[in-house]
């Protein structure tokens, strides 16, 4: 079966006055119908940029320089601007991090919902309104008729994000990209939103890419996981496999950093050093300078290799293989 | 209640923090080198230099002293540009209705326009600085009263205030300068007060307090120098605005007296001849006015970018 989304060798570079920032550097993954893919990484890892690239929302000085983005087999990169516009909000939808800023503060909710419908199909205002109302009801917003006439600032943070989700699902897209949708919300609301999203995507068979830095979210939600670092995918595979038995030292480091993974009273682990500036990447593996398993041959950039169980890894010395010596933790 | 109705207020988005020192180089040198790196700034500065030089050296470079009655001949009046003069020279820019050489009249006029503009700006600057610094430093009721007055004044267009003052005080050079000063001081007061409020919170002021320095010393030696950068930009723009306002007043017949003919008065003089095709009597003084104002604004614009610490790399 053709995957809903197949990204092949995507490269998105930003051409700034200080140099070229390779925000997305040779990223490849697929998302199957109805599947939830987690895209995990720290800030600056390129995960959001990957999402924007798929949506075609990269603005100058950024540009997709290479690769293919196949939605249901068709390469989005070959589409003209109008063709891309027809796909956005229609076959692929996106949810952003801060709902207060993503909803226009001076327009009513119904206006913002109806225009999302009207941009892609001809309906009567009444029919569009009915659809909007149903969408609000489906995401669990009480009294949807009254809420339609309200403005964004009259909603709480969690409600606003539900509205954003409702808008994303209005045109029954094949794929929804959610860029850290729960980061700006408190923990209890987070749980509710996660549950809603899971339920909705299972009901509608929509594929979901969930971008986050929070591993615990991924653990409960995703079918498959891609771990990103410095613009590249360093490890990919099923969620249980990657989180249960990570192969890449970075993934291991991320898992170890989660406080709940440690016994009380013990020292918290951390990955030494900082994410490198994307303007100034050291040659070879970008994780080299922070990796406890780094070896002299890591100055050669590792290629992505696929293992027999379908997992991919970008590392010369993945966990589970022997290394000559362990670098001391700096 | 603030109507941004004037050239006086809209070009001023003054930064409110002083520029930091870098590499130990004197701030003046750094500012100068940043400024000169921009070709537009250099062009503006060059043009301004020409204008100022023409004004200062007017008696030396004018072919004729247009206000010496012995030198002008009514028979030479209203001659077009390039006409030969009876004394053997050429009236490069033509003559006005009294037979005065336009070029000379413009040079002398530049002097007066620039002098009035600069004098009123300096006076307004001093008064505005005093008011704004006092408001910021003393605070409390005094600050409220001063700023209320400033707000109310700034909500009325400058031309209205100037006209009413002239109507009440009468005409004459001193009264025009008074009107110009009254119109301007409020901008300085407001700008320096915001700058001073920011500076007041900084640690070097606290340190000065701890050293038990007298308030006047703190204000003059510590607070004031650091509030100056935004003031320089405002003052530069204001000189242009003051010149424009004085020209407008003179054009309306309510400005400087005939004994001190500024560019505005020259333009007013030529206004009546515009329709009969003798454009040069108004046009050339107008051009001189334009060049003066534009060059000052160019320099001020570039100064603002250079002095703005937020744009420093």
């Amino acid at each position, binding site marked *: 079966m053709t995957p809903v989304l197949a990204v092949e060798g995507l490269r998105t570079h930003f051409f700034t006055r200080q140099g070229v920032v390779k925000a997305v550097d040779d990223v490849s993954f697929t998302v199957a119908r109805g599947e939830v893919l987690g895209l995990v990484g720290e800030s600056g890892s390129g995960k959001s940029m990957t999402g924007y690239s798929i949506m075609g929302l990269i603005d100058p000085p950024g540009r997709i320089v290479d690769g293919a983005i196949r939605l249901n087999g068709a390469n989005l990169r070959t589409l003209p601007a109008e063709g891309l516009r027809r796909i956005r909000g229609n076959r692929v939808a996106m949810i952003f991090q801060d709902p207060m800023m993503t909803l226009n503060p*001076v327009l009513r909710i119904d206006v913002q919902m109806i*225009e999302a419908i009207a941009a892609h199909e001809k309906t009567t205002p009444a029919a569009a309104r009915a659809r909007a109302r149903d969408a609000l009801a489906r995401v669990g917003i009480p009294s949807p008729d009254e809420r339609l006439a309200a403005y964004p600032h009259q909603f709480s943070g969690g409600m606003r994000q539900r509205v954003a989700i409702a*808008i994303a699902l209005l045109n029954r897209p094949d794929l929804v990209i959610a860029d850290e949708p729960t980061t700006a919300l408190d923990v209890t609301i987070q749980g509710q939103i996660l549950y809603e999203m899971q339920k909705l995507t299972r009901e509608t068979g929509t594929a979901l890419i969930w971008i986050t830095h929070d591993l615990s979210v991924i653990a409960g939600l995703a079918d498959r996981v891609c771990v990103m670092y410095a613009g590249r995918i360093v490890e990919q595979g099923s969620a249980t496999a990657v989180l249960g038995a990570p192969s890449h030292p970075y993934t291991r480091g991320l898992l170890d950093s989660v406080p709940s993974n440690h016994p009380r009273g013990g020292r918290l682990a951390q990955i030494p050093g900082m994410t490198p500036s994307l303007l100034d990447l050291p040659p070879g593996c970008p994780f080299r300078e922070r990796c406890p398993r780094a070896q002299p041959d890591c100055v050669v950039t590792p290629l992505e290799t696929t293992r027999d169980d379908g997992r991919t890894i970008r590392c010369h010395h993945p966990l589970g293989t022997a290394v000559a010596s362990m670098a001391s933790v700096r | 209640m603030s109507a941004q109705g004037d050239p006086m207020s809209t070009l001023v988005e003054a930064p409110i923090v002083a520029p930091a020192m870098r590499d130990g180089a004197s701030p003046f040198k750094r500012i100068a080198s940043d400024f000169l790196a921009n070709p537009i700034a250099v062009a503006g500065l060059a043009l301004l230099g020409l204008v100022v030089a023409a004004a200062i050296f007017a008696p030396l470079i004018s072919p004729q002293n247009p206000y010496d009655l012995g030198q002008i001949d009514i028979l030479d009046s209203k001659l077009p540009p390039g006409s030969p003069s009876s004394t053997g020279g050429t009236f490069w820019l033509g003559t006005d209705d009294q037979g005065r050489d336009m070029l000379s009249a413009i040079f002398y006029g530049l002097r007066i326009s620039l002098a009035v503009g600069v004098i009123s700006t300096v006076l307004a600057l001093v008064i505005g600085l005093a008011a704004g610094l006092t408001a910021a430093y003393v605070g409390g009721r005094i600050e409220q009263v001063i700023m209320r007055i400033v707000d109310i004044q700034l909500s009325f267009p400058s031309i209205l205030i100037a006209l009413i003052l002239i109507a009440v005080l009468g005409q004459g050079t001193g009264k025009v300068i008074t009107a110009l000063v009254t119109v301007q001081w409020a901008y300085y007061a407001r700008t320096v007060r915001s700058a001073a409020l920011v500076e007041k919170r900084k640690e070097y002021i606290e340190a000065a307090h701890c050293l038990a320095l007298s308030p006047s010393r703190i204000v003059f030696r510590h607070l004031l120098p650091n509030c100056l950068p935004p003031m320089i930009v405002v003052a530069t723009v204001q000189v242009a605005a003051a010149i424009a306002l004085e020209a407008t007043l003179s054009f309306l017949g309510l400005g400087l007296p005939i004994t001190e003919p500024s560019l505005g008065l020259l333009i007013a003089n030529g206004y009546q001849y515009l329709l009969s095709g003798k454009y040069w009597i108004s046009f050339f003084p107008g051009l001189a006015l334009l060049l003066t104002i534009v060059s000052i604004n160019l320099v001020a614009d570039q100064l603002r970018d250079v002095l703005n610490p937020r744009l420093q790399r």
Partner: protein
Amino acid sequence: MLVFVIRRSLQSVVVLLVMSLLVFVGVYAVGNPIDILINPQADQQDRERAIAALGLDKSLPEQYLTFLSGAFHGDLGRSFVHATSALGLILERMPATLELAAAAMLIAIVLGIPLGLWAGLRPTSVAGRTIMAGSILGFSLPTFWVGLMLIMVFSVILGWLPSNGRGPTVDLLGVPVSFLSVDGWRHLVLPATNLALFNVALLIRLTRSGAHEALLQDYVKFARAKGLTNLRVIGVHVLRNILIPIVTVIGLQFGALIAFAIVTESVFAWPGMGKLLIDSINLLDRPVIVAYLLVIVTFFIAINLLVDILYSILDPRVRLTETGTGT
């Protein structure tokens, strides 16, 4: 909402009273009211009669009350020159000035906002940069000079448009207006364009910075992510956000336009309040000056009030939180 309107209206009335007090003090206490209000050519008997009629022999507070009641009844003295009610003179000339100001504002909006949008959407293009450079000129050039240049080019050299006066007027609801006739328009175009220049520059800059800022906001990204056309994103999402502060500026600027019309009316001999003021200053017709002052102060205060109310209507965040609606 109603509470807000009432509160602001009361504030405005207070400011108006304060300003009237200032004008009163300026005329009656600082200046010599006898010279200001009584025709200098009146003989001794007439002067004494006028002094008694104007109550100038009474105490200052009493005089203020007389002044106020006179103001309420529309009596602000009689013009020395025209021997009619000063206020009446001003009101007679008001439609001309208002029409000029309205036409100028219209030109400024029609030119300034689209040009500013263009410059904001394509800031690095040649057009964008030219527009911004042009806007600097719009601020710095003195209005009267531009007026003269307009006359020179369009009246003298090209001969297309008349250089002064108002031309024939048509009566609309009893008020003489120029815009209902072609000849009226021909007379209106140059002075209105002249007056508009400053505001065109102002609106260009405001719209540009507003658009520039708006484009960086997340709601624009979200709107594009919904697959909306560029036209809708800019025309609805961006515009609705930047229009709110721009509308307030336009409102406040209307007051400034009425004031700056003084210069334009003088250059183009347009028979409005401004020209009347200049003539009165030159002729020392002080009652007219006082009347003009009061009228224009009232205008300013009224405009400020209206703009405040308008702003609270336009911005749903202000409107709805004022009345306490919402969760």
